[in-house]
């Protein structure tokens, strides 16, 4: 089940959901509109060890918009931090962003229950398109869990808990534990 606007507000009041910074204006009918964070990493290439060559971009330096190029992958982040020990989260770009041909996630739109993160965004575009710091970019949804909740990073789950801090993580060897 997906939480409605009212239910998200109830959960914020009870601190089951923490969004920092939180603005009620960003709530939508069954989700929360997130803003685009300040820094981007342009991924120029990725080697066999999954080490990327990157260029860091500060969107504040581009008041007239930063142009995304179709041949690159960019990692960005949400402005807000989302913490929820009760519900799972889903992230998607907004319709208006998709209709401009911008992928906000290549894959993995799910944040596991117990996450406390600025979401990393996996940006890719169909054709050249400008983006701006702090623009409304997509939505976070909250899904009710069915079953016993064990925290993100719990030893119970073999491979969980890699992305626990708030930095844009360029590369993690996803297969470290294998």
């Amino acid at each position, binding site marked *: *089940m997906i939480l409605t606007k*009212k239910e998200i507000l109830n959960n914020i009041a009870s601190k089951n959901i923490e969004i920092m910074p939180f603005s009620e204006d960003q709530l939508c009918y*069954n989700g929360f509109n997130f803003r685009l964070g300040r820094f981007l990493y342009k991924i120029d290439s990725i080697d066999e060890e999954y080490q990327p060559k990157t260029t860091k971009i500060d969107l504040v330096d581009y008041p007239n918009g930063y142009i995304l190029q179709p041949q690159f992958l960019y990692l960005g982040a949400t402005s807000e931090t989302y913490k929820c020990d009760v519900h799972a989260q889903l992230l*998607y*770009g907004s319709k208006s962003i*998709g209709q401009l041909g911008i992928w906000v996630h290549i894959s993995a739109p799910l944040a596991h229950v117990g996450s406390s993160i600025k979401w990393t965004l996996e940006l890719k575009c*169909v054709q*050249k398109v400008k983006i701006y710091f702090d623009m409304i970019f997509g939505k976070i949804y909250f899904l009710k869990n069915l079953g016993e909740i064990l925290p993100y990073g719990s030893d119970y789950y073999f491979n969980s808990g890699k992305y626990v801090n708030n930095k844009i993580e360029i590369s993690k060897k996803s297969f470290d534990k294998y």
Partner: protein
Amino acid sequence: MILTGKKIENEVHAGKINISPFSKNFLNPNSYNFHLDKKILVYKNKILDPKKEQPTDEITIPKEGIILQPNKLYLGCTIEEIGSPCYVPLLFGRSSIGRLGLFVQITAPLGDIGTYGKWTLMLTPVLPIKVYYNMRIGQILFIAPKGEIELYKGKYKNSKKPRKSEIFKDFE
């Protein structure tokens, strides 16, 4: 919780899900198959700027179909008008379409409760691919909400054709 095909059918008859036109033939075990409409929008500008309204050209898919080219965005829409005041709709391309390398949605597969209209499809092929008017191109699913419902009143409600991005309104 996700609705079964049978439940979708029941809720269409009960007026809790709206799909028009509706035919029982397009129900799946957890979804309803929708069809590609005739009109497609393409942006005219080489560089898109969200702060400004972007001009588009409108194409009508001819009888013999149209070939979509990679690295180009085509905004199509569903033939059906779809929405629900009771459930959250979730839209995807069919797996048969995904296996041909055609993105039907780039992002935003989840709709707002209370939305209704033709859904804009963000068609982007990996390889050149022919599409036809009225082909079954995707599926819509419905998820039960938790909590008190407020109905969608946003800018894309009651769409009758593909809609270009109106994000420039967010900057006004």
